[in-house]
């Protein structure tokens, strides 16, 4: 078979996928760009071309900067905590102990729990009057009176970070564990025989195996964190006083609550731009590791 025919055949086989992707992703993406230069309302008359007015208004307004800050805080702290706890959990699960496969199976639970159910669960736990956290901390004598964890601007975002971390650190742990189990047993044993301490073994025996998968997990988690919507919507809807309003929540409010489709689209594009930078980084990583994955 000629290589031209093989290439043509490949494109033909991909045609259904390409048509679907152009219809539900390609066209909407292009239309979002077009809308971002207009003052279109979500429902009703079509808008006028307004040039860069939407962007100018956004970038100079305080709402955008506040949401960017909240998103960055959420992403940096939740991802950092998830990676740290995940690696520690993986190091533990890499040990031999009775009940190990049971604990590993437990790690599947938070992963499988739907994000919305996780958000709802923690909203109940943080409840200001009847929440488990208030009750527990008071009974332990740590807290003297009940607090409204999600109702105070000082604690709401951190409470959400903790809830997100609980759901996602097991994911990092399972990825890291798979990497650790690829380390040949005799190398681990040899390092111990040679008298390498715990830190030296981590740095020189395990890290070379961990670095690749962890970098990929780091980039993927960061992308997910920058897109965060579900957990925040269910727990606080962006409040109190916008202290948990992230970029995706702001787009939702702008485009759908206030029906300003044009300005919502321009904001959505800025979010897309940020995510694309991370995504490009991810794809470069994948390519460098070849089609091994």
């Amino acid at each position, binding site marked *: 078979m000629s290589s031209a025919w093989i290439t043509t055949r490949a494109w033909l086989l991909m045609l259904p996928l390409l048509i679907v992707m152009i219809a539900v992703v390609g066209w909407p993406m292009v239309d979002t760009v077009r809308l971002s230069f207009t003052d279109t309302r979500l429902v009703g008359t079509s808008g006028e071309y307004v040039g860069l007015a939407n962007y100018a208004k956004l970038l100079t307004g305080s709402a955008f900067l506040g949401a960017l800050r909240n998103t960055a805080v959420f992403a940096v702290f939740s991802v950092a905590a998830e990676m740290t706890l995940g690696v520690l959990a993986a190091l533990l699960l890499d040990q031999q102990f009775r009940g190990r496969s049971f604990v590993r199976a437990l790690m599947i639970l938070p992963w499988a729990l739907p994000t919305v159910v996780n958000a709802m669960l923690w909203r109940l736990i943080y409840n200001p009057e*009847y929440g488990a956290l208030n009750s527990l901390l008071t009974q332990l004598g740590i807290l003297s009176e009940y607090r409204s964890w999600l109702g105070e601007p000082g604690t709401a975002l951190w409470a959400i970070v903790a809830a997100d971390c609980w759901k996602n650190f097991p994911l990092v742990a399972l990825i890291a564990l798979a990497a650790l189990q690829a380390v040949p047993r005799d190398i681990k044993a040899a390092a111990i025989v040679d008298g390498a301490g715990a830190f030296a073994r981590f740095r020189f025996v395990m890290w070379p195996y961990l670095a690749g998968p962890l970098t990929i997990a780091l980039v993927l988690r960061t992308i997910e964190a920058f897109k965060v919507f579900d957990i925040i919507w269910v727990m606080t809807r962006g409040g109190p006083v916008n202290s948990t309003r992230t970029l995706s929540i702001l787009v939702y409010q702008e*485009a759908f609550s206030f029906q300003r489709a044009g300005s919502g689209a321009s904001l959505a594009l800025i979010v897309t731009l940020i995510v694309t930078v991370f995504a490009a980084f991810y794809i470069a990583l994948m390519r460098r590791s070849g089609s091994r994955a």
Partner: protein
Amino acid sequence: MERRSLAASILVYGAATVMSAIILAPILWLFLMSISSANDLSAQPLHWWPQTLDLSRYGTLVSLVSNSAGEAFLGSLRNSLFVSGLATLGAILVAVPAAWAVSRTPQVQWSLFAVIATYMLPPVSLAVPLYMGLAHFGLLNTITGLALVYLTILAPFATWLLKTGFDNIPREIESAAMIDGARLDQTMRHITLPLAKPIVATTALFAFLLAWDEFFYALLFTADQRAKTVTVAIADLAGGRVSDYGLIATGGILAALPPVLIGLVMQRAVISGLTTGGVKG
């Protein structure tokens, strides 16, 4: 296995216990809330262990009485089932030929990276035109419309996972069949697809879970019982005027049951899916 000192053993077992407790406690509490009476749940401090067992919420939510909370909740479960099923079916249908083509034809591999890139797009970047498009075709608040939108996520996801699966099926088997005179469609039907059955099944289950979990598009594009999915129903329960926390917890348990069971049964596949980067959190 190296011999551990007593101190190291205590450390390992202690850490394992603490970690298990951290993971189990919230889930156990969700279950306990669902079977505790309203009195136990509104005590200060809480009664951690229910003094009276109250299973009535399960009856309330799993009920076929018309216009009841149960009918609405069961309806949302049914909508989730249909939307996820339909979207999964569509995604698999377009992804199988595409994934095979990418796997066997290095010249078009770059297109795969384009597909993965769209998978990472934030849903907000497509939401406004999708809303207007669905409205234009009268597909807002329909199962078909939402399933169509879910293809934005499921189609690239399935293509990516299937491609890694096809990579593991040696192409020599296909070449041998072709040399013996089999046409491409015959080779696919008799050789490749039977071998790929497990990976297609796994991909379909993961795609289904992904759709079951989806909330953002469902919140935007559904309005009432005709298409509202279970994630939206849960968010309504959690954010609404429901004062019985046990009822909210019961809804959570019921919505979480299918994915948690699938996750536990498919543990091995989950872990290998995670390590190829195909399954997201």
